[in-house]
């Protein structure tokens, strides 16, 4: 198990990572997700040993590795730019960590290449400068695995690949994680990869972990507006709380029609400031048929292929809200621009949330 306690990194007066605690089970796939500049790469580099923390401790299976060098640490980092040695062949790159540990490769290079789905006969003696992005990615992965790390750290290694290749490699990474007894810690700003690959998810912003849990838990129950918006396209309705008692709140919203009372607890949770509803949990219809809704004017209907985005404007407050509906729904109602309608949804799809830091 990898355990971080009060891990902190300051650059001058800037706090990049602020007192982070977490535990990651051996062999699991954990993802640290957050926007650019949130401190996730700093965190990863501290785990790899390339940065020393200002304060705090990193333990691996009960052994303190906070101050051990990258050379002696059982972690291996797959860099965002892959950082393959350009003057070496594929095989020489993969042999590097084996040689550095004073071991003999004894056919391991072939096994590793097969593990990352590269044909050893075709690729072993190629120069890495002749490879495509996806192939370089695979070689970088094989090279890191050749080090036989307990923990494989991945710093957005798929970010510069095309979408189809990303999908493919994401699946392969999860399969590889299941095959090996190696912990994978993956850093990304892409929510989609985080949801697809991980057992455990850490949402990080401004150097702190805002929410942790399984991808499903976080998707279903975001703790605040930041997480909700980060986890998916969502409409945010600012609210005023008029009454809060017995795990319930009564709200006041100038245009919201329908229910004004929602469950909200526990008592020490910060005062809620908004209702958040995902685009695909709402529909736009001429009359109010669901329990909650606001009167809007249709501004635009965008065909996304399998769904349509209906952009609307709140009649009173001039705020814009979006609904993602199936193409059938849109054509059944025959929505056109400038129609008056209701953007509406059911209360169980409503997240009542505090604002969050950003």
């Amino acid at each position, binding site marked *: 198990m990898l355990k971080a306690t009060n891990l902190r990194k300051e650059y001058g007066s800037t706090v990049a990572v602020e007192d982070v605690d977490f535990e990651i089970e051996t062999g699991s796939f954990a993802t640290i997700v957050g926007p650019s500049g949130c401190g996730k790469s700093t965190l990863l580099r501290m785990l790899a040993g390339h940065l020393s923390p200002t304060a705090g401790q990193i333990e691996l299976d009960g052994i303190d590795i906070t101050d051990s060098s*990258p050379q002696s640490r059982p972690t291996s980092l797959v860099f965002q730019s892959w950082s393959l040695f*350009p003057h070496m062949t594929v095989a020489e790159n993969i042999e*590097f960590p084996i040689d550095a540990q004073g071991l003999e490769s004894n056919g391991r290079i072939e096994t590793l290449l097969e593990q990352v789905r590269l044909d050893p006969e075709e690729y072993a003696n190629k120069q890495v400068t002749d490879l495509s992005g996806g192939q370089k990615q695979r070689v970088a992965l094989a090279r890191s695995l050749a080090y036989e790390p307990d923990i494989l750290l991945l710093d957005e290694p798929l970010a510069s690949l095309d979408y189809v290749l990303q999908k493919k490699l994401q699946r392969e990474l999860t399969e590889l994680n299941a095959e090996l007894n190696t912990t994978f810690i993956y850093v990304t700003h892409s929510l989609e990869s985080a949801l697809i690959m991980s057992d455990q998810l850490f949402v990080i912003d401004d150097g702190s972990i805002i929410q942790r849990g399984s991808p499903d838990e976080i998707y279903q129950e975001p703790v605040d507006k930041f997480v909700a918006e980060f986890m998916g396209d969502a409409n945010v309705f600012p609210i005023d709380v008029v009454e809060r008692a017995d795990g319930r709140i009564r709200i006041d919203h100038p245009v919201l029609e329908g229910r004004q009372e929602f469950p909200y607890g526990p008592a020490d949770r910060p005062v809620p400031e908004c209702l958040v509803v995902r685009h695909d949990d709402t529909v736009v219809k001429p009359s109010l048929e669901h329990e909650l809704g606001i009167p809007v004017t249709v501004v635009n209907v965008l065909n996304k292929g399998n769904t349509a985005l209906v952009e609307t404007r709140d009649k009173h407050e001039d705020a814009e809200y979006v609904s993602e509906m199936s193409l059938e729904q849109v054509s059944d109602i025959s929505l056109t621009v400038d129609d008056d309608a209701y953007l509406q949804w059911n209360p169980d799809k409503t997240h009542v949330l505090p604002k969050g830091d950003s």
Partner: protein
Amino acid sequence: MSVREFVRSKVPTDIDRFDRRLALVSVLRPPSGLIIPLVVLLAFMFVGPIASIVLFSVQPTNTISLAVADWTLDAYREIVQGTISGKGVYGEVTTNTIMISALTTVIAFAVSYPAAYALATKVRRFKLPILIALIIPLFTSVNIRVYGWVLFLINEGVFDLLAGSVGLDAPSIIYTRSAVILGTVYVYLPYMLFPIYLSISTIDDSLLEAAADLGAGRTKQFVDVILPLSKPGVIIGSLFVFVLSLGAEVEAELLGGGTIYTAASNISYSFGYSQNWPLGSAQAVGLLLITTVCGVVILRTIDLTEIASRGGSR
């Protein structure tokens, strides 16, 4: 592939004759008109004089005005025979030139590599002033700098005074081959240092991090990553220094005091004192050939695509 086939392969076949001719013109056109001024300048200032020297080199001894029809290989014969037999001045010239160039290259490398490595990786403070201090001598005329050395090294000069003041009676090295090498090392050192410095500083830091990450200690990081990746700088630097030292004339003339004959000083002597232009020209052509061969052979060992791929490309 012949030129014709090459051009054909670049021209689509499913277009009519006129378009085809147009496409052909565009294939033969230089990549950009922007290089035309450079080409004209080089043609005028490099190709012209070289052609004259080649023509003069096949003229009979002491020709002053060209008579192309009246050609002979006498000058070359004299040089080749002299060099092979080691008779006359040619044996000494060859030995001196090769010794001076080779030793200058080796010494300049030995001095530059550690300094370039330190400047590229270790030195943080005062890096700019140090680099500027290394460049400034290049703004000063070689003659002035070499005269400085003469005044420094000459009998009862500054060196003797300093040595004497601490009770040393060091024999002055002025007018020896060592003095000439000292001068060439000093003058051409930046040509070794900067290519090495550049090649080390363009090594992506993340490669060293990756090496450390994969268990490599400092020695392995240096031997397996930094050293091979700085090879292009070492090769280019060595080529510069070797070739420039082959042609070093002022250093040999002044610090050798007219007693150390090198290829360049001998060419200068043939053109000047002995007024034997064809012999000087033939020697110049020989030196040029050696230089070109060295350059081509050495540059072929560098992987230019690897160098071009540095700096963020993947």
